[in-house]
């Protein structure tokens, strides 16, 4: 006797039908002859185990017995064969199992040896679980409803931020107006926008300017909100495709409330559009994971568009290529890398075409690859990155670890647990979490914190699916700990909301532009720190070329002496070259000092107004000097 358990039904007399299940007790000595083995064998006194075994292995037509559901049945007495412990229907070698069949099978046709295909033509994707059931239409609907709530909260968080145009917003929208003029009428563009923009000036700025002429800056910011809501939705779709609806909700929920998302959702710059197109590209990569590998080429145009809109998005193109390899679910061996190569090749081809079309862009090196080195320390950058995206990143790491250990939570143990192999799971976690570190790492290399709070969000978009998985694992199978997930979401929301408010704090320029308005005309020359802001708001009465910023200029005085840097500003102010001077005091301290020094004892200028503002960094004031 063995120590194994007896199947439940074995003791249930209702299930034991002697007529249909004559094998019960068959093995016991002395009852063998009463047992009703089908066919003449039961009558055969020379019956032996070997013969029975032979029947089991090759059930002959005349030995079949008809039952309700054709199957094998076990009496569960002696065999220690492991398959009996499961409730499986397959146990070909159990000597005590009886084969039953619903109806007598027709005489087996002569077996035509059919060549077995190497691989199946199409393998159905693993069924996504949703608690006790597989994902159904209902769970999809529920997921979308939750996504809608997530998007509403995201919109609310973004829209509660307010303020006058930030320097970059003003510059891009204003540049867009000139670019439209250039495209439509060929009017020259004032300033070498292509030389220092961090994105191609004929893309986003043109869109922004078109919206601006209809709905003003608020409208342009709404467009950004749409982009960010779109990015959240695409993240949801992508994660649902990669994992399941719960992970998708988690990913969308966390991504929608981190400070970068909240901030960019009300910020009229390249960033929101770039994030959206990166998300679109990533979604296409994942969406075409089971399609023929050529389909991945579809992901190349949005990826390159994202890069063209904001060059910094190029940092994430390799991630998309590797993602294409890792999400090639149907393809193993060399065809998976081929998918990546195909995507990479398509991107390269588009880039080449873009290069031929647009020519070399100085802006890429100046604003992205070769940005002026700053003096921010690595520790400071790391600390701030951790504050801005640490929670979501940690969740993503947790999700990656959990994913590496088990591909599923095993909520339905009877389901066949198929999923990507361990290598793919680990690689996916490393890729997506690693991508979140790209921007901080790169900016640590550049030693500058400029825009880092925005760039953190680009990486978090990619870490999103893993974070979603992390939150779903944290909640646990069958929503065991929903409070943990809610806690994490609320915590991220509070951080995101507060940090976005702290970062979204620009000087209120309304009073400044109101003071300047009667002082400016189409002829004057104006020096302004963050000159883009007054140039944008006063674009109806001045031209962009009339405004001189404080980021650098060359100047030659009347005697022919050349100056550059802060000295140039000092000399120009002494010579009363500018009709109006506006300083706010913190953006370019060196030039500010040079200008205020030059204004000291300067009979040409008179302080016209001091307009105060408050930002999260402290109080400040625009000081406006005019020629007497």
């Amino acid at each position, binding site marked *: 006797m063995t120590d194994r358990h007896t199947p439940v039904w074995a003791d249930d007399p209702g299930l034991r039908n002697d007529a249909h299940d004559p094998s019960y007790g068959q093995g016991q000595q002395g009852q063998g002859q009463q047992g009703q083995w089908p066919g003449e064998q039961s009558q055969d006194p020379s019956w032996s185990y070997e013969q029975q075994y032979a029947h089991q292995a090759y059930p002959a037509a005349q030995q079949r017995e008809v039952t309700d559901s054709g199957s094998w049945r076990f009496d569960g007495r002696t065999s220690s064969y492991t398959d009996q412990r499961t409730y499986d229907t397959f146990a070909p070698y159990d000597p005590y199992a009886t084969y039953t069949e619903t109806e007598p099978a027709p005489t087996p046709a002569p077996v035509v040896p059919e060549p077995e295909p190497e691989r199946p033509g199409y393998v159905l994707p693993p069924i996504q679980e949703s608690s006790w059931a597989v994902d159904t239409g209902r769970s999809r609907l529920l997921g979308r409803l939750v996504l809608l709530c997530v998007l509403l909260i995201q919109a609310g968080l973004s829209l509660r931020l307010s303020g006058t145009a930030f320097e970059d917003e003003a510059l891009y929208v204003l540049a867009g107006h000139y670019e439209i003029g250039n495209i439509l009428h060929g009017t020259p563009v004032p300033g070498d926008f292509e030389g220092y923009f961090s994105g191609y000036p004929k893309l986003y700025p043109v869109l922004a300017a078109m919206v601006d002429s209809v709905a003003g800056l608020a409208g342009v910011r709404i467009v950004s909100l749409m982009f960010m809501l779109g990015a959240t939705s695409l993240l949801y779709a992508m994660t649902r495709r990669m994992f399941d609806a719960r992970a998708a909700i988690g990913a969308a929920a966390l991504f929608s409330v981190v400070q970068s998302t909240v901030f960019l959702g009300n910020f009229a710059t390249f960033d929101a559009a770039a994030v959206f197109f990166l998300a679109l590209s990533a979604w296409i990569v994942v969406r075409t994971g089971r399609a023929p590998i050529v389909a991945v080429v579809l992901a190349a145009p949005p990826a390159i568009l994202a890069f063209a809109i904001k060059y910094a998005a190029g940092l994430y193109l390799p991630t998309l290529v590797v993602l294409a390899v890792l999400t090639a679910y149907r393809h193993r061996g060399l065809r998976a890398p081929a998918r990546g190569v195909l995507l990479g090749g398509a991107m390269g081809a588009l880039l080449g075409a873009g290069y031929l079309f647009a020519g070399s862009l100085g802006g890429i090196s100046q604003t992205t690859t070769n940005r002026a080195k700053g003096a921010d320390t690595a520790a400071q950058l790391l*600390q701030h990155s*951790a*504050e801005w995206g*640490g*929670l979501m990143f*940690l*969740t993503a790491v*947790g999700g990656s670890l*959990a994913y590496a250990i088990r591909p599923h939570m095993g909520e339905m143990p009877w389901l066949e647990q198929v999923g990507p192999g361990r290598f793919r799971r680990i690689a996916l976690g490393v890729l997506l979490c690693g991508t979140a570190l790209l921007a901080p790492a790169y900016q640590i290399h550049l030693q500058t914190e400029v825009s880092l709070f925005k760039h953190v969000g680009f990486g978090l978009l990619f870490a999103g699916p893993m974070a979603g998985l*992390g939150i779903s*694992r*944290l909640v*646990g*199978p069958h929503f065991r*700990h929903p409070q*943990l997930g809610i*806690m*994490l979401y609320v*915590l991220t929301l509070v*951080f995101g909301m*507060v*940090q976005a*408010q*702290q970062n*979204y*704090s620009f000087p209120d320029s*309304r*009073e400044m532009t*109101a*003071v300047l308005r*009667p*002082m400016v005309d189409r002829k004057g020359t104006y020096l302004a720190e963050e000159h883009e802001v007054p140039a944008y708001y006063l674009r109806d009465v001045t031209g962009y070329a009339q405004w001189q910023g404080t980021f650098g200029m060359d100047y030659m005085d009347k005697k022919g002496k050349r100056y550059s840097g802060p000295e140039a500003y000092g000399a120009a102010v002494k010579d009363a070259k500018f009709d109006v001077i506006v300083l706010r005091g913190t953006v370019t301290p060196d030039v500010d000092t040079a200008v205020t020094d030059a*204004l*000291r*004892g*300067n*009979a040409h*200028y*008179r*302080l*016209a*107004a*001091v*307009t*105060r503002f*408050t*930002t*999260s*960094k*402290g*109080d400040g*004031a625009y*000081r406006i000097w*005019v020629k*007497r």
Partner: protein
Amino acid sequence: MTFPPRTARALRPVRMIAAVLLASALLAGCTTFSGKGRDEYDRAQGEQPGTESPGEASESAKPEPPYDVRPLLQPAKKYLGVAADGAPAKMTSVEDFAKRGGKKPNLIEFYSAWGDQYEAGLVQKTWDYGALAFIAWEPFDASLKDIASGKQDEYIRSYAKSVKALNLPVAISFAHEMNGFWYPWGTKKATAAQFTAAYKHIHDLFDDEGATQVIWVWSPNVVNPMPKVQLKAYWPGDDYADWIGVIGYYAATGPSTYKTLYGPTMSQIRSFTKKPFIIAETAAQAGERKPADIKDLFEGTAKRDDVVGLVWFNFDKETDWRVNSGPLSQKAFREQAADPSFGFDVTKP
């Protein structure tokens, strides 16, 4: 009741992950929700840190742009100013002056002692009358040294804030006749360096507060009584003064022509600055020469493009300086003031 062993095992990593997340969140929260972080949040909300409710006034009512005084600095026509008894608190003396002189003055000078609040009401009243207020700010109660060293900053700032809040142009002459010996801020009690330091300090504080509505007047006495005092040492600089308010009277004795009375002072000043002059206090002593003096004053002022006007000291103090001291004087004044180059609407320069 017992839990299946798998459940108990599965709980542990979940708790661990939760604990790690919470710990790291608190770590990150150290700065976001620190005192500094909360201040930043408050400020970003447009509130001052520490205050409970947002400043309603600063939120809702955006102040209008500061008054641009530049058109008043060197107007096409000249100021006809007056300093009269009780004005501008009571306008009767000014109206009397206007009636007798035949022309409405467009500048009214009055005196403000150190420690007085900015007379916003008087400046408003003057403006409503159609004249620019000219305040002679007399530091009787504070030494120039103290003012320069910052001991009076609180008072100066509150004065500047009032100026900014009223947002009307005002001419301010601080410590006038500093080159004379008779005032406590004069040559006997203070040095030129102290004067310029105090003057610049006040000006800087006004600039800092954004009180740009001030026309800064640097107001020396004519050099004739104390020719040894060099004015250049008292000059604060071109960026600190808008007008040079020369003070000089046609007295019974002493110089009695425009050229001799103001000439030496003006030529000395022209050696270091090109700022416009205004005769900040003048009058003629009652006497036979008075009509001639009046004529000389108006003609001399009209002739010089760099003199933006004059202020008649219409008091009967020590001697009768008033225009109506005699019928001939009044007639002469009427005739001279009728000159179209005198008087204009300061509210629409």
